[in-house]
C-alpha cells in the first residue's frame, strides 16, 4: 500500500497546481479546470484517509464532492457561455466593466 505521507504530498501538489492555475491563468475555462483540480486534491485525501483510518466517512464525502463538482461545473459553464454570447471573450482580464 502507498504510505499516507506520499498521498498527502501528491494531494498538496495538486492543490498547489490548482491554486496557481486560479491565480495566474486568464481563461475562465482554465480557471474552472484548476478549481476542479483543487476539489480532486481534497477527494484524494478523503479516499486515502478513509483507507488508512479504516473509516467509510471519507468515501461517502468523496461521492458527494464528485456530484457537487459536476453540478457546479454545469452552472459555471452556463455562466461562461452567457458571458461569451454578450462579450465575445472569456478572458477574465477583459471582463472589467465594473472597477472600484
Amino acid at each position: 500500500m502507498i504510505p499516507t505521507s506520499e498521498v498527502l504530498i501528491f494531494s498538496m501538489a495538486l492543490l498547489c497546481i490548482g491554486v496557481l492555475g486560479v491565480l495566474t491563468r486568464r481563461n475562465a475555462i482554465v480557471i474552472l479546470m484548476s478549481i476542479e483540480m483543487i476539489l480532486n486534491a481534497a477527494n484524494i485525501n478523503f479516499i486515502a484517509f478513509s483507507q488508512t483510518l479504516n473509516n467509510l466517512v471519507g468515501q461517502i464525502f468523496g461521492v458527494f464532492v464528485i456530484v457537487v463538482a459536476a453540478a457546479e461545473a454545469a452552472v459555471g459553464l452556463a455562466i461562461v457561455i452567457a458571458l461569451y454570447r454578450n462579450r465575445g471573450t472569456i478572458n477574465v482580464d477583459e471582463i472589467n466593466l465594473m472597477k472600484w
Partner: protein
Amino acid sequence: MEQYLPILIFVLVAAAFPVVTLVVARVIRPHKPDPVKLSSYECGLESVGEVRDRTSVRYYLIAVLFVIFDVEVIFMFPWAVRFKQLALLGFVSMATFLGILLLGYYYAWRKGALEWV
C-alpha cells in the same frame, strides 16, 4: 542490483526498437508524396472538413445534461450493493432521489433543452 540487469537490457531494447525501425524505414523506403497520400487516413473514406471544426452550442447543452445525470448515478451504486440491508428506507430514499431527477428531466424537456434544432 544485479537482478535488475535483465530489466535494464529489456528497457534499452524496447526503447531502441521503434527508433531503429523508423530510421531504417526512412532510409530504405522510396519517397514520392502526392496529395492523396498526404491526406489524413480516415478509415479509407475521404475526409470531410477541418479537424478544428466548431460544434453547435446545442451539443454543449446535451453534454452538460449528460454529465449531470450520469454523475448522479454514483449514488445508486452503494444502494445497489447493499440493497437487501438498506431495506425499505433505502428504497424510499432512492425512489425520492430518482423522483427529483425525473422532475429535473421533465423541466429540461419542457424547456426544450433536448431538442436538436
